[in-house]
């Protein structure tokens, strides 16, 4: 029963995570993953990034992005393992691994964005 009641919640996290990931991750990864390391544009100073990241709005947006995108991963990867690798018989282990991983990652994101920054 508990599992069935949780299903709409994890689906909601999956779908909102899919949306924010689609809207924000490509531009962030293009910039920080390729354009800046390859030197096509001079990298912003650390002071500029720090002041940008410490803005309360940035913190909330980044935290929301990280948490929702991680739960998006958890839900989608769970079904990838079920269907793609035909591992449905390991359902319990996969559920604990996926959502547990997303929880740990979210905890880390809270620490890095709200405490350590």
């Amino acid at each position, binding site marked *: 029963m508990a599992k069935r009641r949780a299903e709409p919640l994890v689906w909601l996290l999956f779908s909102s995570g899919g949306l924010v990931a689609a809207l924000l991750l*490509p531009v962030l990864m293009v910039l920080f993953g390729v354009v800046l390391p390859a030197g096509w544009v001079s990298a912003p100073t*650390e002071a500029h990034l720090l002041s940008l990241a410490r803005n309360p709005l940035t913190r909330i947006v980044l935290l929301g992005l*990280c948490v929702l995108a991680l739960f998006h991963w958890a839900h989608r990867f769970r079904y990838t393992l079920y269907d793609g690798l035909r591992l449905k018989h390991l359902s319990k282990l996969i559920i604990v691994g996926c959502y547990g991983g997303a929880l740990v990652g979210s905890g880390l994101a809270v620490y890095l*964005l709200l405490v350590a920054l």
Partner: protein
Amino acid sequence: MSVRYTEFHPRWYRPPMSVFWWAHRRSYLIFVLRELSSIFTAWSVVFLLLLVHAVSQGGKQYRQFLDLSSNPWMLALNVITIAFLVFHAITWFNLAPQAMVVRLRGNRVPRSWVSYAHYAAWALLSALVAWLILR
């Protein structure tokens, strides 16, 4: 005897299916690739959190992070990541009208409009983020 729902229907005959069932047809392959995009979404979150951590530690760690990102292996991984992220975004926005029924004065807004709105939001947000970081 009452018939009860079981997850696997162990008493029914089911033909065995290969683990590589998705390799036999193009549409299945695309489905599995789209599912696999979630791994790259998770990697992006890890990468960005590492960046935030480096920036919060000071200029030296930030430069080290940029050096690490310019490693050819890291660049290759991130190029593949971007390809999967864009694939995810496009399939997501194209599917949005199926999941989202928008009504305006009682009439259903055409499906294509819902997709276009998502693409417009994507373009605007990307431009805003790039401007904030590079200005």
